[in-house]
């Protein structure tokens, strides 16, 4: 249904008139030009399209626009603060926790949401928390120490 929907996107208020059943993924990638959020499977399995809605990691390919009305959406383009990389971004770079990089935005945002709930995770808790984000390259074993290091640097702060 066509309606006007207002929400916060990467800290700025956005008002859109659109079919509110359209999935957030496509609103972000096409209307908003935020292509950091990736299309991987379109079925909610792979996690490449993960974004934050009120700090909770969601699959944007399964989230209709109407679900984010009045909420705060953060994409990979929005987690830098004052042009400084987020500790997760820095740690992913340092630990070479990516190869092709296509799953990386989703990985980082899922880790962000995970660390909010569990700021001092063990390695096995990280594996569990990241289990539903797929990477085909083989960065998994470097993603774990990257998240561990970011957790230490953040000390529960975001």
């Amino acid at each position, binding site marked *: 249904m066509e309606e006007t929907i207002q929400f916060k996107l990467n800290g700025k208020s956005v008002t859109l008139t659109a079919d509110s059943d359209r*999935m957030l993924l496509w609103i972000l990638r096409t209307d908003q030009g*935020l292509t950091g959020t990736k299309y991987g499977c379109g079925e909610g399995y792979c996690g490449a399209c993960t974004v934050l809605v009120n700090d909770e990691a969601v699959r944007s390919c399964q989230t209709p626009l109407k679900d984010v009305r009045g909420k705060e959406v953060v994409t990979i383009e929005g987690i830098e603060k004052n042009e400084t990389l987020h500790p997760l971004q820095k740690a992913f770079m340092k630990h070479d926790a990516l190869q092709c990089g296509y799953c990386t935005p989703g990985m980082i945002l899922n880790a962000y949401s995970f660390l909010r709930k569990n700021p001092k995770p063990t390695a096995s808790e990280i594996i569990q928390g990241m289990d539903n984000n797929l990477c085909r390259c083989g960065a998994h074993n470097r993603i774990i120490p990257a998240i561990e290091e970011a957790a230490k640097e953040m000390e529960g702060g975001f």
Partner: protein
Amino acid sequence: MNNDDYLELDFTDNIPDFQINRRDFLKLTSGVLILFTIGDKEVFAQQTRPSLPTDFNAFLRIGEDGRVSCYTGKIEMGQGVHTSLAQMLADELDVSLDSVDMVMGDTDLCPWDAGTWGSMSTRYFGPALRAAGAEARQVMLQLASEQLKTPIEQLVIEQGEVFDKTRKAPRVTYAQLTKGKKIERHLSQAAIKKMPSEFKIMGKPITRRDAKEKVTGKAKYTGDIQLPGMVYAKILRPPAHGAKLIDVDLLEVDKMKDVQVIRERDFIAVLHKYPDVAEIALSKIKANYERPQTGLDNTNIFEHLLKNASEGKSVAKEGNLQEGEHLAAKIVDETYLDGYKAHSPIEPHTAVAKIEGNKATIWASSQTPFSTRSEVAKELGFPPENVRVITPFLGGGFGGKGRNPQAVEVARCAHLSGKPVQLVWTR
């Protein structure tokens, strides 16, 4: 198994459709140019590829600004050659890693290359690139020797600056040495490369050069290319291999606003400025197909495959299987059956096409930009040189992006609709 047997396993029909016009190509460049060929020519010759360019298929250039560029048809799909090849070049040339640009996978800018697969970029391209770097370094030393009036043996290079090791000054930079010059060298024999003990950049842990782009979401993959007026295509697919389209009802989709339907025989696609709306439009097409009667199902498919499999081939033969069996403490004899597995890099096959007059530009998630160009040119009836394939970052390839039917499909869509089109395959 001979390492070079790899070459037989994949893409053996991948041959160049035309040779780069060297005279035109060289007009474009100034500075120092080193032309070289990737890999062992003998190996390629054994593959009986008569049209493979024997001239060169990669080159490096030291520009008047001192920047070093390497042009190659290889592509970056996460394996990291965007970084590691630059490391090799910087080390052999004695320049900083930051001053090296890798120009990859663009069929207009880069000389022909068979493709990126089989873990061969490092093994074949690496040594050739290093030799070219070493050759370029020799050229720089010769130029510096003339300019500084100092014998070559007395010169050293640090970060692209040449000086007399006994005096440390004056120094002359690569940029100063190449200014106003056009020096072309063709690497015919292996230049003397550095020994591992001399490496300053190779073998040292560094951050991959594309890491920052990739953690910030700025890295561009094919699906991130958005052109003015571009629409997204969804293609009507048959329900089975060999199924024939009997009839199609487009009434519902024709009622949809701003949706364009294109059709050429049984090739039917819907276009819209949003991919998700195009998907809805596709679901409104009612199509009847005649499925081939194969008599095959999930239980008898394995027997069918075994019966129809091509003759097996030994790639290596050693030892004695029966002797080995006798020596085994335990023998496990089992048959394992598994279903069809789709090739699934995280980034699906994607392509964008823009056609202007008789020229086409294609962005494709391709491991083989040059054969992608041939296929698109053939489909459109354009000469290959009128098709430019640009390869942005790939979201994984794993061999699955050696074939790129999506690029041909999107070119058809752009041709039939008159609009720039993006096509992303679904799972």
